[in-house]
């Protein structure tokens, strides 16, 4: 009962303090960013500006070929703004590029010179083949320049390129892989950051605030235990973590994710992060002293986020950082057919590790809480 009363009191205090609203506010901002600024599928296409220095017949044939590669098979007449000039163009959206075909050669070149865009002039070579003149910025890699040279100017024939790719054996390691769209893909890092890492920092702030106000001493001379005091704080952090996570997940994912499992994992990972925060806090008298250690800890825990967005960089040691398992677990939870066994295993691990850390923090705080 003392734990319940302490938790209710902590919740009441949290609802009257700024930290709770900072957490909720950050979650709302993240949600708005996801919904308003992150498209479901990020558009990776770049723009290219073309001038076709071709006879009318060749020009029509070339345009017909581009039109056939356009995603909807339609061209669009658009008016572009270049400096103070208005320029008419035909727009084609291909799989990996947006092409703007202009009637003004100088305007195309100005795009390269002034707007730092890729400009191309297509003309006929002496053999009546197509010759591509690329106006690049100068910082493009040698490889890219060679690729343009080979591909467009037929140093190697298309047949040779196709033959090379035909010889490459492609083996599928995972059949029918599940993918998250770009918006959903941002949820695991957001949940890890808001649900666990922020809780760690805010828990430390709560404890130090109590120390500063001296209320810890008043609590220490009651018949309640130190662990009840600490657990009531952890309870508030978990409550905020669940609330902010639901704020993020529900509007983005709807009824898709396994919510009971999400709650289990939020509780387990939140408990672990809170206990970690408590252990760290037990070594310091105030937040100024603890700030450096908190900063380093949070930076280390953020490292797996870099690997999350950089598939080519994921060293083995990174998997030892707890937030790596958090990211993976959140990802599995929101996937349609996620690995529930992995999530339950990670939950059990976080719960066990959290319990050990909590016991250690309790032992430390018995000596240091009232100092």
């Amino acid at each position, binding site marked *: 009962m003392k734990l319940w009363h302490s938790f209710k009191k902590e919740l009441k*205090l949290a609802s009257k303090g700024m930290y709770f609203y900072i957490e909720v506010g950050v979650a709302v901002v993240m949600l708005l960013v996801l919904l308003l600024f992150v498209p479901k599928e990020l558009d990776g296409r770049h723009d290219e500006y073309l001038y076709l220095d071709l006879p009318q017949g060749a020009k029509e044939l070339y345009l017909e070929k581009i039109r056939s590669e356009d995603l909807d098979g339609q061209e669009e007449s658009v008016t572009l703004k270049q400096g103070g000039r208005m320029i008419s163009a035909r727009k084609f959206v291909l799989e990996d590029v947006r092409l703007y075909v202009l009637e003004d050669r100088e305007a195309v070149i100005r795009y390269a010179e002034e707007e730092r865009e890729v400009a191309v002039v297509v003309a006929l070579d002496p053999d009546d083949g197509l010759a591509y003149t690329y106006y690049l910025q100068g910082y493009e890699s040698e490889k890219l320049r060679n690729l343009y040279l080979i591909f467009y100017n037929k140093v190697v024939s298309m047949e040779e390129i196709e033959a090379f790719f035909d010889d490459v054996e492609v083996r599928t390691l995972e059949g029918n892989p599940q993918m998250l769209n770009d918006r959903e893909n941002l949820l695991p890092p957001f949940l890890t950051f808001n649900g666990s890492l922020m809780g760690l920092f805010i828990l430390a702030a709560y404890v130090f605030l109590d120390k500063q*106000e001296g209320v810890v*001493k008043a609590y220490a001379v009651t018949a309640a235990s130190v662990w009840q005091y600490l657990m009531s704080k952890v309870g508030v952090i978990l409550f905020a973590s669940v609330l902010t996570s639901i704020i993020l997940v529900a509007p983005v994912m709807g009824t898709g994710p396994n919510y009971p499992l999400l709650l289990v994992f939020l509780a387990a990972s939140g408990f672990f992060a809170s206990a970690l925060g408590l252990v760290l806090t037990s070594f310091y008298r105030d937040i100024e002293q603890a700030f450096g250690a908190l900063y380093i800890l949070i930076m280390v825990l953020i490292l797996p986020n870099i690997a999350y967005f950089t598939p080519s960089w994921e060293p083995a040691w990174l998997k030892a950082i707890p937030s790596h398992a958090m990211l993976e677990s959140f990802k599995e939870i929101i996937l349609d057919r996620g690995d529930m066994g992995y999530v339950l295993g990670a939950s059990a691990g976080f719960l066990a590790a959290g319990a050990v850390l909590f016991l250690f923090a309790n032992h430390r705080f018995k000596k240091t809480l009232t100092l």
Partner: protein
Amino acid sequence: MISVRNLYHSYSNDDKYAVKDVSFEVKEGEVFGFLGPSGAGKSTTQNILTGLLQLQKGEVAVAGYNIKKIDNRMFNEIGMSFEESNLYGKMTAKENLDFYRKLFDVETRDSMDLIRIVGLQGKENIRTKEFSKGMKHRLTFARSMINNPRIWFLDEPTTGLDPAIASEIKDIIREENKKGVTVFLTTHNMYIADELCDRVAFIVDGEIRLIDSPKSLKLAYGDKLVDVEYIKDGKVLKETFSTVMEEDKQRLIRVIGSHDIQTMHTKEATLEEIFIKVTGRGLV
């Protein structure tokens, strides 16, 4: 109720002791004053007795509980009023007390009764961060009574209070003591110690220099003289009489019997004077 034997405490875990070889006993129903200047070791001793500091060396028992391994049930028996108010500023006075009531396993006092006792009625629904320093201090004092403690630790209970409120606080202490509550009073204010304490301990540089009742100390260290101002033949005369010498005692009786007495003062020493005499140090 309190037993302290050879207590030592060092904040730096070496031989620089904040409290050195302190021993004393406090009997049930007694008001025991712990008197000393700032930094003398008063708060360190009190914090060890209340479990706020870990016992390093020595034997301490409070309300029958060994402090070496603190049993939470001990806190049902003790109350602690802190010198620095420590309340939840975002909660009202009543919410503060209501919360602490739930942290004990014994029958607790009604929050509103306590608020009335310390003169804060009408302020119960105001957040304590809006309270003045004195109001906060009174509520902290009221909170220390919430579990009907058998041993009451009071750290500078009247510091910062105006004289009228301080007087009320002293009355409450006396009243609780009459009910049998043992009081451990930590202060550097010799007047409150003189008024309330059955016995006082003088502590300086972490060591107890003396323990006795204020009355005995005054008798032991005061001069046995009486200063008398009286009117004789229209003139105000002032004389000092010994209360020990027979000749002076007879003369004093004659003066009282035959003249109008203007003022008469015994020359007993104040606790502060005795403290300075014993320790060679002031109380501030």
